[in-house]
């Protein structure tokens, strides 16, 4: 089927009335394998093809299926590449992470690796080529030494996880058109929040963000990370004052805020060579 016929079908409203999916469970997507789904309609398009359930070969140009949804996934993938490499590097560095803390970072690392695979497979199923892994500089031109100093490793880990939570949240609107992708995004987003809470608490912070502060005392965050926490101090949610009951710290902590695409990209870019 060529692209013109495909677009013609997509403009037919009846194709949007039934949500079909070639996979029962989006988590099966990784079983596509390395030679992904050549003979099958991609997941995203399959859900449009309500009235033709069988697989067809396609010759669609990968660049034509780019959309706000796939851009959101590429941003997520960028952040996951970053975290994945960061933790792999940290775990591989001798004498960096104390043995007492290794289990935690092994678990986090396992998840970030899984997220990279999952997002790449999802993009591929939507017939979009996943972006390549960037070259990262976690020192930010020598400003940080996270692979030499464990306290700095923890600081950046906290920054990355808190950023991830806000970045995914900021993309919810862009992915809500595809129910499977939205749900998967939510399911990754909550994992990042679990990570963030853990790393924060390992730094003697609360697991949640109070006001616009990354932390206090020995858990304080350097000014270079201010962008990660900017805007977290809001206490009005849809006209409701969240500070009334217990004060601004509690009210602001009860909600995590979004980062826009531009804000999330700016933070990630700091670490890309």
């Amino acid at each position, binding site marked *: 089927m060529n692209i013109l016929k495909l677009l013609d079908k997509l403009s037919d409203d009846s194709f949007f009335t039934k949500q079909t999916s070639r996979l029962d469970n989006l988590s099966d997507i990784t079983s596509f394998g390395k030679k992904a789904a050549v003979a099958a309609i991609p997941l995203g398009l399959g859900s449009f093809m309500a009235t033709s359930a069988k697989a067809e070969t396609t010759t669609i140009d990968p660049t034509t299926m780019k959309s706000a949804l796939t851009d959101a996934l590429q941003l997520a993938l960028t952040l996951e590449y970053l975290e994945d490499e960061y933790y792999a590097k940290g775990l591989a560095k001798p004498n960096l992470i104390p043995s007492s803390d290794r289990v935690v970072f092994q678990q986090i690392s396992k*998840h970030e690796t899984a997220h990279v695979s999952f997002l790449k497979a999802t993009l591929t199923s939507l017939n979009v080529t996943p972006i390549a892994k960037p070259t990262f500089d976690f020192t930010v031109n020598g400003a940080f030494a996270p692979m030499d100093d464990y306290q700095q490793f923890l600081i950046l880990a906290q920054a990355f996880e808190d950023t991830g939570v806000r970045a995914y949240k900021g993309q919810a609107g862009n992915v809500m058109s595809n129910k499977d992708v939205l749900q998967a995004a*939510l399911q990754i987003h909550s994992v*990042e929040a*679990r990570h963030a*809470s853990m790393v924060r608490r390992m730094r003697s912070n609360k697991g*949640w963000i109070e006001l616009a502060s990354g932390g206090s005392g020995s858990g304080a965050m350097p000014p270079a990370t201010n962008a990660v926490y900017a805007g977290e101090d809001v206490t009005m949610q849809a*006209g409701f004052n969240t500070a009334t009951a217990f004060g601004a710290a509690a009210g602001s902590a009860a909600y995590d805020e979004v980062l826009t695409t531009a804000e999330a990209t700016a933070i990630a870019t700091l670490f890309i060579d």
Partner: protein
Amino acid sequence: MKKPINVSNQGATLDTSRRNFLKLSGIGIAVAGLTLVGCDDDDFVYNDNKIFDLGMGDVGVLNYAYALEQLEADFYTKVVNSFYAGISTVEKEVLTDLYHHEVIHRDFFKAAITGATNNVLPTLEFQYPNVNFNDRNSVLATAKALEDTGVAAYNAAGKYITNPTYLVLAGKIVSVEARHASAIRDLINPLTAAFSGDDVVNPTTGLDVAKEPKDVIAAAGGFIKTPFTWKERGIN
């Protein structure tokens, strides 16, 4: 002054209109201080003992979230009103913060839903038959279950929301619930993988649990005394 008449559906015939009220047979009526002579129809407020339905579309999802936040708020209120024996300073701080956040979430939903519809979930009654509020293990295990359930509920409910503003609001809350869950799990099994364990995060995909409303209510329903339905989501 309104005089409340509590009408029970037990044995009632189908016609429940106010006009035909006095013609109905077999209804149990409890009326306080009423004499029929000189009573105006408008003096009465009818409380029908029907079961509340969460509603359709986004209203249903908001009421669902409100129900779960009511449960969490109720639970943590009990916890902080009588902390378990031997509680540590850190644990007290965590549980107090959780109490604060869930009460805020609950009150937020009540306000938001009230602004959007008349179909506002009433205050539910809860029960904790197997929870010992004076026992650390019991309290933390229950907190863990409630937080994990909250995360799973929001993760699956997101796709039922049509208004992007509501989706973002739900998103702002679910990540906080996940932070809670992580903290509780770490209090139970410190510095292990439990904060984000394989029992909730799929080790292959890295995805957190997502549970359909039916399954959430089945799991959490034991705590909820007041029945309600969500017919649109198959909860009857």
